[in-house]
């Protein structure tokens, strides 16, 4: 951030569904540079609705970036620690942007969006894969820096397109598939978690990905901004679907044990400490060639000083970001996000603690307003994931 005068502080911008949210009675707050709905009816009822039915979330603040070119995969692999070149078309992978020190610049989803070009089957031409394309979804607050970082390190032959005229709508919950199936027949039948398709819904070109940030089954639908309101209306016309604000999005992802960038993961944390080792593909750990590799391998080999853990806190008083964690008289960590779990009806938190104290069941204490609250290291997620992984 610059410390320049007021007029350089970016104005809070509006997203394609701004007026739609206001009509639905949203309370709007500034978030990641945009006016965003924090809640509609209330965080707890929206949270519980998403866990039992389906919630519609506007996540259009997130950055959608298309990376295209013959060398797109190998260029992305210079920055991402996951296997991108072996990611098949239509498949999605969670990945990280790392700095030279192995610090986390952002977390993101990568989809192999390479198009299939239909051939003339009668002439014996079955078709072919088009120019390699990778669809990235990055965090809203970091998207401009991500684009700068990608542009700096990726070869100029590879094109980056910021899809800033697209909205992103997430439909999440156990009834999400039922509702979406009723709106669009035969589109998601064969899809499982972490798969993505394009679909022409009338004149609306959509990208539908089976993924999300709630721990539930669900979809993220990329739609041109001009059709976003109509799509939101179509989905909310289904009896199972209600609009859900950022407040419940946060409590849902916390229960699902999913880290929030800028809080649970930052440039001061590395993928190993953050317990995101699954994003470091085994082969790529060995081969290297990605930014931060040396530092991350050092942490992998020597073990991290601290680890991200879940904490279940006794009583009803929530412990929030910044609260110190103690073992006896010694501070052994800090909470990075915490709140009250509507599903479990108790306070839960994530934080970093010394590795020796990171094993499940370890009894610790957190300090809130000079009071010590008993807290136990708990397996993540707090609420089991219910992704649709197929049979």
């Amino acid at each position: 951030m610059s410390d320049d005068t007021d007029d350089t502080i970016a104005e809070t911008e509006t997203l394609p569904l701004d007026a739609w949210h206001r009509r639905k009675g949203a309370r709007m707050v500034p978030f990641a540079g945009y006016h965003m709905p924090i809640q509609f009816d209330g965080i707890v009822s929206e949270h519980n609705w998403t866990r039992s039915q389906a919630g519609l979330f506007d996540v259009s603040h997130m950055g959608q970036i298309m990376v295209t070119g013959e060398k797109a995969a190998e260029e992305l692999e210079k920055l991402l620690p996951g296997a991108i070149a072996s990611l098949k078309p239509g498949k999605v992978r969670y990945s990280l942007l790392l700095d030279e020190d192995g610090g986390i610049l952002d977390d993101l989803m990568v989809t192999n969006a390479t198009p299939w070009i239909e051939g003339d089957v009668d002439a014996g031409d079955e078709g072919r894969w088009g120019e390699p394309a990778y669809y990235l979804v990055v965090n809203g607050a970091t998207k401009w820096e991500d684009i700068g970082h990608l542009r700096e390190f990726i070869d100029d032959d590879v094109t980056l397109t910021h899809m800033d005229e697209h909205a992103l709508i997430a439909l999440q919950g156990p009834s999400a598939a039922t509702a979406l199936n009723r709106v669009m027949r035969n589109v998601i039948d064969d899809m499982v978690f972490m798969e993505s398709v394009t679909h022409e819904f009338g004149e609306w070109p959509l990208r539908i990905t089976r993924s999300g940030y709630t721990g539930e089954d669900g979809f993220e639908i990329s739609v041109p901004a001009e059709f976003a309101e109509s799509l939101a209306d179509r989905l909310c016309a289904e009896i199972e679907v209600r609009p859900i604000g950022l407040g419940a999005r946060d409590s849902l992802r916390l229960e699902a044990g999913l880290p929030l960038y800028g809080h649970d993961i930052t440039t001061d944390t590395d993928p190993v400490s953050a317990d995101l080792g699954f994003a470091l593909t085994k082969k790529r750990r060995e081969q290297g060639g990605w930014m931060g590799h040396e530092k991350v391998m050092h942490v992998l080999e020597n073990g991290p000083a601290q680890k991200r853990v879940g904490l279940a806190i006794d009583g009803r008083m929530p412990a929030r970001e910044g609260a110190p964690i103690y073992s006896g008289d010694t501070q052994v960590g800090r909470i990075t996000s915490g709140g009250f779990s509507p599903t479990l009806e108790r306070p839960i938190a994530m934080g970093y603690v010394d590795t020796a104290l990171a094993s499940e069941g370890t009894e610790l204490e957190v300090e809130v307003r000079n009071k010590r609250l008993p807290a136990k290291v708990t397996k993540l997620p707090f609420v089991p994931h219910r992704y649709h992984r197929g049979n």
Partner: protein
Amino acid sequence: MARYFTDEHEWIDVEGETATVGITDYAQGQLGDIVFVELPDVGTVIDKGKDAAVVESVKAASDVYAPISGEVMETNAALEDDPALVNTSPEEDGWFFKMTIGDKSQFDGLMDEAAYKSFCDGL
């Protein structure tokens, strides 16, 4: 019985030498779902404007300030089991604590119901 309001969205009922304190319907609406209320210990002497209680919603913790000075006589035990009373009945069953009235002149700066209503309308 007189009821006063503060610009911090607390209400105070005055009955004889005792004041009952809670937060207003407007305040609970702004805070959203309340999951925990931290009340002062009985016997605590609090000064007007200083922290008296903390209200935790799903999203955040908010301080409640003492609307007047005095000593805490009783706290609402019902909030321990059912903090959502503050959402469902903020100005009756969801009261926070009862306190002595240290200085009656401190009521002078507070609002009555009509003044508080127009104050909220202006927000």
